[in-house]
């Protein structure tokens, strides 16, 4: 590996360091150097959303971000979604609603859906559909995914009220 740069970043709350070439995507770095293969590669061109992560809270396709750009930033992936041994409500609802078939797009959908619910806890169907329009699923026709997100949002609002 020539021209590698050492990158210090935070991934799912933990300090992480990795060295990567200047032209390597953050997706590749997360997958191959940090070991987070829940970040999926479907296209490498920002069209499918399978590699969705948040960077300082913003939803991005990690294939369109360079590894070196993670320096000093907060990265969140699907692997950080469940805390304290419990599934995030979105994760549980995706299972309950059979919102995945092959499951390759699921990590990206979960990250994108969480980003939506973080800024809009009560989205309507149209808002959900547009918020998830950057994530391709070829198996489900999105029907059960939208239902799962609606149900998770409902449960999260209920939990908050308690």
């Amino acid at each position, binding site marked *: 590996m020539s021209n590698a740069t050492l990158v210090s970043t935070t991934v799912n709350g933990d300090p992480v360091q990795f060295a990567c070439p200047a032209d390597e995507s953050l997706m590749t770095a997360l997958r191959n150097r940090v070991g*987070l*293969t829940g970040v999926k590669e479907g296209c490498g061109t920002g069209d499918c959303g399978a590699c969705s992560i948040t960077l300082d809270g913003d939803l991005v396709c990690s294939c369109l971000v360079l590894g070196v750009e993670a320096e000093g930033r907060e990265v969140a992936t699907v692997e950080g979604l469940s805390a304290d041994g419990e599934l995030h409500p979105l994760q549980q609802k995706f299972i309950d609603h059979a919102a995945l*078939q092959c*499951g390759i797009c699921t*990590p990206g959908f979960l990250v994108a859906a969480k980003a939506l619910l973080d800024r809009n806890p009560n989205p309507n169907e149209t808002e959900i559909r547009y918020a998830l329009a950057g994530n391709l699923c070829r198996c489900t*026709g*999105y*029907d059960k995914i939208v239902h799962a997100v609606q149900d998770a949002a409902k449960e999260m609002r209920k939990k908050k009220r308690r």
Partner: protein
Amino acid sequence: MGHDQKYVDKKYDVVGTRFNRPDGIDKVTGKARYGADASAPGQLVGRVLRSPHAHAQILKINTKKAEKLPGVKSVITFEDIPDLTGGDQGLADILENCMARGRALYDGHAVAAVAAVDEQTAAKALKLIDVKYKKLPHVTDVDEAMQESAPVIHDRIITRGVEPAPTKPSNISARTQMGYGDVDAGFAEADVIVEKTYKTEQTHQGYIEPHACLASVNPDGTAELWVTTQGHFVFRNVCASLLGLDIAKLKVTSSEIGGGFGGKTHVWAEPVALALSRKANRPVKLVMSRDEVFRATGPTSSTSIDVKMGATKDGTITAAVAEMRYQGGAFPGNWAMLACMTAFACYDIKNNKSIGWDVIVNRPKVAAYRAPSAPMAAFAVESTIDVLAKEIGVSPIDMRLKNVAREGTVAPYGPTYGPIGIEHTLQAVKDHPHMRAKLKKNQGRGVACGFWFNIGGQTCTDLNIGVDGTVNLTLGTVDVGGSRSSMAMIAAEELGIPYEQVRANIADTTSLGHNDMTEGSRGTFSSGMATVFAARDAISVLKQRAAKMWGVPEEDVVWENGQAIATGTGHGNLPPLSLQEIAAKSGRTGGPIAGHNEVTADGAGMGFASHICDVEVDPETGRSTIVRYTVVQDAGKAINPDYVEGQFQGGATQGIGWALNEEYIYGKDGCLQNPGFLDYRIPVCSDLPFIDTKILEVPNPLHPYGVRGVGETSIVPPLAAVGNAIANATGVRMTHAPMSPPRVLAAIDDQENAG
């Protein structure tokens, strides 16, 4: 042990309810390992060099510079995968598709490959390989390829199915004809005859996970392959044949699969990865880019279809003829033959004839895509039926019901139907509230039917009971959409234990007998059958052990609700023995308790569906939006309704994408212009409404639980359902799919100019 596969009507405890899938948590937490997610010590990165030309002679490949680059561990061309196919032309075609042998046959055809220590080095090495091409004339259009003047792609191809056999080679690999009756007499009886020509463009399965594998070959001929595939046993056999390995020494493990839809039933880069590993003597991970997936794997045929149908004034179809031209890419296929099987299969037409032409063009080798070949034929036939119904003045649904195939109807491809569900789906559509919902301005409603025959095939299943009474169900059919949950449910049902007590796993090729691909909607039908039989096998062992524990004759023991019960005089008062109790003592009553089954599952139940589509067409732009969609399909028996609905919704959505947007666009140079998800647009979440589903259950008499197979039929009706809806919204009959905004707008303009 022989088992009875006949359907028996009974009350189910587990089957037909909804359980969460066993692989759910792994898949929502990022732990599930797909094709690209495995690693091996010392692994290299494999990359493939592909032809930039549609058709070219390869004069010379110079790999010397690439080999000298530090970090490059192997460079291969076709010479590193010698032809061991021994006259098996089908296998030779697979080999040539994996790596060009003197000629590049399509844009994206593999020409050479490298394995290097990292991505950067591998990419650099590809650029150092010098290939001298001599461009040859090419043809990518199915109709043009059939012309006398077209460049002939393979000199060896003499059209099969034509008498007398042609004396000259051509791009037409086969002619197929099916049907019965006298179509000329049928048309003479008709009051109205409609004749139309249709075109459908090439589409890709579009699985989100690119092809990926991790190959490792040792100098002694032992090897391992981790791969995303719909059938690791078949991949093992094909790769072993191509590489000259012993089948038992090549262990293939199927990773979690990120979508296949038929595209992962074919071997692509796996033999290349194995050859790279063999030469480098190190593991090689080869992951395709999306560009490679589009240019060199999948797609389904583009087609050109003539349909002629005649009917009497009462709506009886008296004759039907379809002539269908399907391109199979650069190698011969049997895609038009499948079209002949399916085109008129929903109907009882006493005079019908289907002619298929399989055609070779300079495009990637066509692969199966969900009910392969049926959607295009259905687009043509189901559109024509609507035109015919309109001309006669009957409703499209009544027209279909009038001619519907029933038990006893002879299918155009030969068999006589047993109990089938097409009439039930049409009646359910007719009665559905969707049909009575009001349409708004610029909206139209369309209905269409679809058929897929479904298959069975070779299947092998193990069922092992642990000493705590939990059950490992070991399957060999790759789980493409939740089948592990269905199989665990079937095992639980049969054994009479809770679902949670069963764990279903997919075995690697060294752990179980051969299983055919998960294709043809066979997974739940055939693996379900083998699971029932393996469970019954285990139950007979459980009964023997209970008899031993009690000291009573075996024939006095029955199995009910998960426990052994002693019957008969003398020992009727013995308390039942549960599966757990028997399992706990197994070490002292004869050893482990297991059931096993191997079967060639026959009697797959035919799948039929009817769809309702509401579309809104923007007259300014020609853009069509699906505003409501309903799928009605006969599942035979829905083991886990969640995943049956999922198949209905997913197939319908793929069909909608095909109907409205998806198409391969080739330039004059014969190169694919849109090999990416930006320009090859599959439906996104905001394109669609909820997809309503209705599961009907007309049991398949040749499956113990009545299962048919549900995976594929759902993609068959949408093209015509959308086309019929657009016709009703605009008055314009679309005959070219996809019915993309420019095509619809042009058709609207043409109509206005003509009007």
